[in-house]
């Protein structure tokens, strides 16, 4: 479909995942291999296969040291995609959101993690969802489902339904939405996702925030409610519009910061480099 194949990007977690599934992330507890953690005495961990001879010989007390590793664990990676009518603007879902989710699916699969997709409008949409899986070609299926999904309907209450279907251990959850819902609803959603590591992905479009016409008439129709309005664009209104957009962004940022979340901006186009940098920071 696309010319250059997707390159998986690595990502780091801000926590040590629990669980038993082997994966790529340094996990909780002690393991026999993986990321080196520390040396402990043989008495504390009686595992003679991992005696570190060099360290033991250097020890003036002649104690035997054993290498200890963090186990490699897998985490579930989940994308919750808002498919309400407002996401129809600029074909965001079929475009950059599908790109992003496909990339995440591929990266998760390569890292040995499982990936799940939940598309929601007012309800959870099964045809735009995929249960946790780590099979090959998952990214293409994710993309196909998102392109086929026609965003419609009002509200994003389905996100709450999806939150209930997430795994019961800490997962990496990307919430992809334009976050135009009321703040209370958003708070509820984050409350429901308390168990998980949440990365909000804010889908924005500069054509309704900055690249506005200076003069002219525009009839805008709300993609969710259908309410139409005529707007007489002029420099002063343009300034006001930009200012309000900036304030809305700031309010959203404040809300995220209060919950210790760091959002990813998905503005106009998917910037893979920036995304990779951001995910490597954990």
């Amino acid at each position: 479909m696309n010319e250059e194949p997707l390159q998986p990007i690595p990502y780091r977690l801000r926590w040590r995942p629990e669980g038993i599934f082997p994966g790529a992330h340094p996990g909780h507890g002690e393991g026999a291999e993986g990321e080196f953690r520390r040396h402990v005495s043989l008495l504390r961990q009686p595992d003679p296969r991992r005696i570190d001879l060099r360290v033991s010989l250097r020890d003036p007390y002649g104690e035997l040291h054993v290498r200890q590793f963090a186990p490699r664990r897998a985490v579930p990676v989940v994308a919750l995609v808002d498919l309400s009518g407002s996401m129809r603007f600029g074909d965001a879902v079929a475009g950059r959101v599908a790109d992003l989710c496909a990339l995440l699916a591929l990266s998760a699969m390569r890292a040995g993690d499982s990936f799940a997709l939940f598309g929601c409008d007012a309800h959870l949409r099964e045809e735009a969802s995929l249960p946790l899986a780590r099979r090959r070609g998952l990214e293409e299926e994710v993309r196909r489902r998102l392109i086929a999904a026609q965003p419609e309907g009002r509200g994003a209450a389905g996100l709450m339904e999806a939150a209930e279907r997430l795994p019961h251990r800490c997962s990496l959850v990307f919430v992809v939405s334009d976050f135009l819902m009321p703040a209370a609803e958003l708070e509820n959603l984050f409350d429901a996702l308390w168990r998980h590591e949440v990365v909000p992905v804010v889908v924005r479009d500069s054509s309704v925030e900055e690249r506005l016409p200076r003069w002219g008439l525009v009839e805008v129709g709300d993609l969710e409610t259908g309410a139409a309005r005529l707007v007489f664009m002029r420099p002063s209104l343009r300034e006001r519009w930009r200012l309000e957009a900036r304030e809305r962004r700031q309010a959203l940022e404040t809300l995220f910061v209060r919950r210790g979340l760091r959002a990813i901006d998905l503005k106009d186009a998917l910037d893979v480099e920036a995304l990779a940098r951001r995910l490597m920071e954990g």
Partner: protein
Amino acid sequence: MSWAGSILDGLTRDWGVDHPLVLALMALALLPFLATPFVRRGIPSAALVPVDPLSRAVAAALRLAGCLAILALVLGLAGLHRREQSVEREGTGAHLVLLFDRSSSMDNSFADRAPTGDQESKSAAAKRLLAEFVARRPHDRIGVAAFSTSPMPVLPLTDHHEVVDAAIDAIDRPGLAFTDVGRGLALAFSYFADDTDETSRAVLLVSDGAALIDRRVQDALRDAAARTPVHLYWLFLRSRGSPGIFEVPPGEDTPQANPERHLHLFLQGLGLPYRAFEATSPQAVADAIAEIDRQETRPIRYVERVPRRDLARPAFMVAGFAVALLLAAKLAERRLAPARRTRAPAAEAAPARRAA
């Protein structure tokens, strides 16, 4: 319902349409409230757009313009017009009847011969001066009558001065035969028969001679003078050598020998405010007319019939204006350009590259 009926009645009394059935199309005027000329651009949320009263006003104005355009078009197609009406107007002036002598002697100059060179015939001088006179008195209602062998009604009392000008313009046409002042005066008096206004009325007789007035006609004139009090002015264009009307001639003083003087005496005897001006040159005519002009100024009130006025053209102009407004708005339409998909161009380019 009665008030609705009275409103409808009031509307249809003054206004009308040629094709009432076309008015059914007026229902289309509701269309602008259902749709707009613009392409609706989706926006994620209406809350993104700042509240703006001016935008709302513009939207309302454009809807109204659309409504107005359709209404005006329908009214224009239906042939809207204002019915013929009578309007009461007020002005200073008089009701004036100009009574012209069209006998052939009027074509002569004041020297009583065919005009040559820069000489002016009596009728031409009268025409010129009377045209100026009428032009100075815009609020007069003026009627025109002429007489020769028999009286000729030319123009009833009217305040359409273009017509009066045209009538005055025609008095220097070549004249006819004789002079029958009596019946001409009777005709002039009859102009005021159904004129009941409290205005100053005057008859201005312009002639260069007179003739005997039949006794019956004399009686009729006395009757008419008693019924309709008018001011009477006689502008006597006296040719050189002809007897004057004021002085008593030396010879026999009979109406047959001296009809002008006896007409003057008869008119004096009518019991009307009467003045005669004896003009022997164009300058004297001008003086006489200025005198009349000074005398006949009193406020008058008159009813004017306004002809039916077709309003289809203004209606179409209004519609054109409204449509132009809508067109300008449509041309000013802009779109919110959403960001292009990043990978789409690559996908489009791919088949091309493969084909190459």
